[in-house]
């Protein structure tokens, strides 16, 4: 009989489509059997529930996917510890994450600081390119657990951002290719556009794995970079950063 994990989760319940999504294929979670038990108290039904899975790593990314892809969302859909409405809140949560990792981790300080730098670049990109034009909810989803950091936004996505300065982009795959490989900023004439190039190099140097979804495209970065069509569309961005799960939080 397979081992099952009961995980108490705060926040939105992942949609049925989220469980089918190819988020975190590292853990092959598409095959996970799951059940969701909601709290019986009506007023808490949306805040707490228990997920039963055969894998511990699945829920956070699926919560982010559900939030990022929902037709409508409101500011209070996410619990405060998964939601950063402003950059200042995000910076505070990055500080808290670094403290938690340093206290409980068996990975090196250097790796922890690189994880902060990578998450910082990805999260701040969401603010840089969507401030004032979020679809509905301002800010980002930011969560972390054993071996993973998950970020998402309900912004306009990488293709729409880059098309302002490179109108010839024809697909989301082309947009991700450009974002990771070309020196080009969606906020030209400001001289920017090096953040995701840094992310790509850091992932390679630190032997990490990043999956980034935007529009109909999905980029998987580790020693190499693979960009392909995703089976589910994410209008804004969703990033799942996976690292050696020797961190005990």
């Amino acid at each position: 009989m397979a081992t099952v994990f009961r995980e108490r989760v705060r926040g939105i319940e992942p949609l049925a489509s989220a469980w089918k999504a190819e988020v975190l294929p590292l853990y092959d979670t598409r095959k996970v059997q799951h059940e969701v038990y909601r709290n019986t108290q009506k007023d808490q039904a949306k805040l707490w529930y228990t997920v039963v899975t055969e894998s511990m790593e699945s829920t956070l990314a699926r919560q982010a996917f559900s939030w990022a892809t929902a037709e409508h969302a409101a500011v209070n859909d996410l619990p405060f510890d998964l939601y950063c409405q402003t950059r200042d809140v995000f910076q505070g949560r990055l500080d808290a994450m670094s403290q938690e990792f340093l206290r409980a981790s068996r990975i090196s300080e250097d790796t922890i600081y690189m994880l902060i730098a990578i998450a910082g670049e990805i999260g701040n990109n969401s603010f840089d390119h969507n401030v004032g034009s979020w679809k509905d909810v301002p800010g980002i989803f930011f969560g972390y657990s054993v071996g993973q950091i998950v970020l998402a936004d309900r912004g306009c996505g990488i293709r729409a951002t880059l098309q302002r300065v490179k109108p010839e982009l024809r697909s989301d795959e082309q947009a991700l290719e450009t974002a990771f490989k070309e020196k080009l900023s969606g906020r030209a004439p400001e001289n920017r556009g090096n953040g995701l190039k840094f992310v790509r190099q850091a992932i390679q140097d630190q032997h990490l794995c990043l999956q980034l979804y935007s529009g109909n495209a999905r980029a998987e970065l580790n020693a190499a970079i693979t960009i392909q069509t995703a089976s589910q569309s994410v209008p804004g961005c969703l990033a799942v950063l996976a690292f050696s799960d020797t961190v005990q939080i």
Partner: protein
Amino acid sequence: MKIELKKFGDMLISRPAGREAFLALSAYLTRDIDRNETIEIDFEGVKVLTPSWADEVVTKVAQQFPNTKLLHTGNASVQATLKTLRQYSDVKI
């Protein structure tokens, strides 16, 4: 003169924070400094540095003062960021 980045914090991440740091150091530290003077940017005590923050400070200081030197750059994120700036922001330090 020496610019100690740890005085701006030990996690130097966002571009707006970098822009604010550059404005502050332009007003209080480098305003009356001759263009040819040697400027030392000291990374001691910095734990996390990103290209976004550094592009607003290191790149601009290096453009303004050709004799810019970098000190204590051993931290992994400092090294990775400087590598990115040299490659994509044309920083020649």
